[in-house]
C-alpha cells in the first residue's frame, strides 16, 4: 500500500492581513508616518466636505422663480435652473429652439453609433459625420434655407457656441495639423519652410492675442463695406492657432514610427501619399492619441477666451447673468455650474481617448 501523502491544507492568512483590515493596513497605516498622513487627510476632508455638501445640496434651494425663494443658507440653484436654457443656447430665439435641439440630438446619435461596438458601415457614418453633418448643422443653426428664418451668429451663445467653437477648431486643426506636420518633415525646402514659419508664428503668440487681433485690429484693416462676421473671425483664429499645436503633436507621432516602416513602404513601390495614408499616418496617429486628446481638451477650455471679444460662450453667458440686477450675488453657483459642465465634457473626452487607445492597441 502506497501511502499517499496529503499535505496539510494551507492555513488561512491572518485576519489582519486580508479583507478591509488588511487593505487598510497595507495602504493607509503601513508606517507611523503614513498613519499620521491618513489621519491628517481624514481630518481635512472632515473640515471641507460636510460644509460643502450642506451648502451645495442639503441647505440648497431648488424650487421657486425669484431670488426671494433663496434662503441664503445654502446654494441658490434656482438661479441656474431659471437660466438653464439661456446658458445652453445663449440668445437663440425661443421659437427656433428646436433647431439646436435637432442638431445636438443628431450629433449625439452619430457619436453613439460610432461608439457602440460591432455596428456596420461605421466608416460611412464617420465620413458623413465629418464631411456632411457640419453643413447640415450650420444651415440648421443659421437658417435662411427652405423658409427657415435666419438666426444671426450674434444670437448664438452659451454651451452651443462653446461646442461650435471647439468642434470647428478640432475639425480644421486635425487635417491642417497633419498637413503641416508632413510639411515640416518633408525633404522639399518650400513646404518645409512654410510649415516651420506657420507653426512657429502661431505657436509664438498667445491665443488671447490672436482673438484680440481678430476682433479689434482686423476690422480696421478691412476695406470699407467688407465686414467679416465676428464669430467667423474667431473661428479662423482658433482653427489656425490650434492646427499649429496639432502639427507638433502629429509630428511627434511621425517620428515615433520606426524608419523601417518608411523603407518598407518605399520597397512596396507606394507613392508618397499612399505610403503616408496607408502605412505611416495610421501608426503615427495611434501613437499620439493621448497628445491629440490633450490638445482637444485644452482647446475646449481655451474657447472661454472668446469672452474677451464679446462672444457669449458658456462662461461668458454665465458671467453676464451675474449682472442682472434682480440676481446679483450668485456668482458661486454660476461658476460651479459652468465648471461642472466643462468637467463633464473634458472627462468624457479623456475616457473616450482611453477607450480608443485600448481598442487600437494592436501591435506588440
Amino acid at each position, binding site marked *: 500500500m502506497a501511502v499517499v501523502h496529503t499535505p496539510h491544507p494551507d492555513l488561512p492568512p491572518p485576519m489582519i492581513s486580508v479583507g478591509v483590515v488588511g487593505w487598510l493596513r497595507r495602504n493607509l497605516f503601513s508606517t507611523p508616518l503614513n498613519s499620521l498622513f491618513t489621519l491628517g487627510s481624514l481630518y481635512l476632508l472632515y473640515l471641507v466636505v460636510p460644509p460643502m455638501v450642506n451648502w451645495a445640496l442639503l441647505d440648497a434651494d431648488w424650487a421657486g422663480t425669484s431670488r426671494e425663494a433663496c434662503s441664503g443658507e445654502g446654494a441658490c440653484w434656482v438661479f441656474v435652473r431659471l437660466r438653464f436654457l439661456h446658458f445652453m443656447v445663449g440668445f437663440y430665439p425661443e421659437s427656433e429652439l428646436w433647431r439646436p435641439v435637432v442638431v445636438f440630438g443628431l450629433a449625439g446619435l452619430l457619436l453613439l453609433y460610432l461608439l457602440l461596438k460591432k455596428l456596420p458601415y461605421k466608416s460611412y457614418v464617420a465620413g458623413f459625420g465629418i464631411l456632411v453633418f457640419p453643413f447640415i448643422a450650420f444651415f440648421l443653426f443659421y437658417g435662411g434655407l427652405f423658409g427657415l428664418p435666419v438666426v444671426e451668429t450674434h444670437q448664438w451663445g452659451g454651451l452651443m457656441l462653446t461646442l461650435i467653437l471647439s468642434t470647428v477648431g478640432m475639425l480644421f486643426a486635425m487635417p491642417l495639423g497633419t498637413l503641416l506636420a508632413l510639411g515640416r518633415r518633408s525633404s522639399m525646402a518650400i513646404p518645409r519652410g512654410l510649415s516651420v514659419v506657420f507653426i512657429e508664428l502661431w505657436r509664438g503668440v498667445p491665443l488671447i492675442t490672436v482673438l*484680440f487681433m481678430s476682433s479689434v485690429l482686423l476690422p*480696421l484693416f478691412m476695406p470699407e463695406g467688407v465686414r467679416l462676421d465676428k464669430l467667423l473671425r474667431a473661428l479662423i483664429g482658433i482653427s489656425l492657432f490650434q492646427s499649429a499645436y496639432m502639427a507638433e503633436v502629429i509630428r511627434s507621432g511621425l517620428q515615433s514610427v520606426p524608419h523601417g516602416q518608411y523603407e518598407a513602404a518605399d520597397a512596396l513601390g507606394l507613392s508618397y501619399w499612399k505610403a503616408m495614408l496607408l502605412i505611416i499616418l495610421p501608426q503615427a496617429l495611434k501613437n499620439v492619441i493621448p497628445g491629440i486628446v490633450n490638445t482637444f481638451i485644452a482647446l475646449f477650455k481655451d474657447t472661454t477666451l472668446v*469672452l474677451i*471679444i*464679446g462672444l457669449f460662450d458658456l462662461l461668458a*453667458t454665465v458671467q453676464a447673468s451675474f449682472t442682472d*440686477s434682480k440676481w446679483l*450675488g450668485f456668482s458661486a453657483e454660476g461658476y460651479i455650474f459652468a465648471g461642472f459642465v466643462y468637467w463633464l465634457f473634458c472627462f468624457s473626452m479623456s475616457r473616450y481617448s482611453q477607450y480608443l487607445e485600448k481598442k487600437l492597441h494592436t501591435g506588440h
Partner: protein
Amino acid sequence: MKKYSISTISSIVTCLLMLSGFSVQAGTLDEVKKRGTLVCGVSTGLPGFSSTDEKGHWKGLDVDGCRAIAAAVFGDANKVKYAPLNAKERFTALQSGEIDVLVRGTTWTKHRDTALGLNFVGVNYYDGQGFMVPKKLGITSAKELDGAIFCIHAGTTSELNLADYFAKNNMKYDAVVFDTHDQAAKGFEAGRCDCLTSDQSQLYALRTQLSKPYDAVILKEIISKEPLGPVVRQGDDAWFNVVRWTFFAMINADELGVTSANVDAMKRRSVNPAIRRLVGLDGDKGQSLDLPDDWSYQVIKQVGNYAEVFERNVGKGSALRIRRGLNALWKDGGIQYAPPMR
C-alpha cells in the same frame, strides 16, 4: 500671388490713410434704414445698465437707449442687434463701423470726445463716486468720515479720487484694498472697514449683494464727475441728431408728464402745444431728422420717457433702488435738461 499681395497691401494702406483722419462713411442713418436693424454696442454686463434676464433678453438703462433709437428709426424698438463689447474694444468697434452707436456707460471726457474721433451725444446717467456706510453708524455726510477705514477696489480712479477728497478736506483715512468689487463688498460686510467707496451706480449694485442690503446707506455726497452717455462717430451730423433728439424726446416727455401709458390719450386729447409737438401732431414732426412723423410717439409708446426708463432699470422698480439725485429733471433739483422740441 504677387499681384494679389500688392492689391492687399494697397488696400491696407488706403484703409490706414482713411483711418488716420477717422473719416468714416457718411450716412449712418441711411445705412441703418437699409439694413433694417440698429447695431448697438452695449456692455457685456453692468447691473441696471445692460444685462441679460432669465430668457436671455437684454435689459437695462443703456439697452433702453438702444431700443429708443430703433423705435425712432423703424417704429419698432425690437429691431436692435446688440453687440456686447468690453471696455477695450468699444471704441474700435464704433470707429470701424461695426456698430452704429455705443451706449455702454462710457464716461464723457475731453480725450474721448476729441482725439478718438467720437462724439458724445448727451448724458443719460450722471454717475459719480460715492460712499456706502452701515446704517448703524448714524453717519449722514461724508464730512463725518474723518479717520474712517475704507474698502477700495485696487487700481481704479476711486482710489485717487478718495485721496484727493480727503486731502482737500484735511481729513485722514485708512484704506483696505481689494482686487475686485465683489471682494470689496464682502470685506465691507465682514466689517473690515467702515465705508465702501466706488461709483454710485456700482455701490447700489453691490448693496443688493449684502445679506441685509437695507442696513447699509449710500451717502448723498458725490466726489467725482462721471457723466455717462451714448457715443457716435464724429462727422455724421444727421445720425448724431437722430440719436441726440431721441434722447431729448425722452427727457421732454418726462418733463411734460407723457408716459408710455398715457401717450395715446395725450395724442388724442391734449391741447398743450408742447405735447402736441412731442407726439408728432404739430410742428415739423420728423421731417428735419429724416424720420417718420410719429418717431417720438413711438419712442415714448414703446420704451417710455426718461423717468420710466430710469425707475424701471435702476430706480424704484429695480433691485438697485437708485435715487434720481443728479438725474432728476432740472425743475426737480437735478440736472437732466433737454432743449425744447420745436
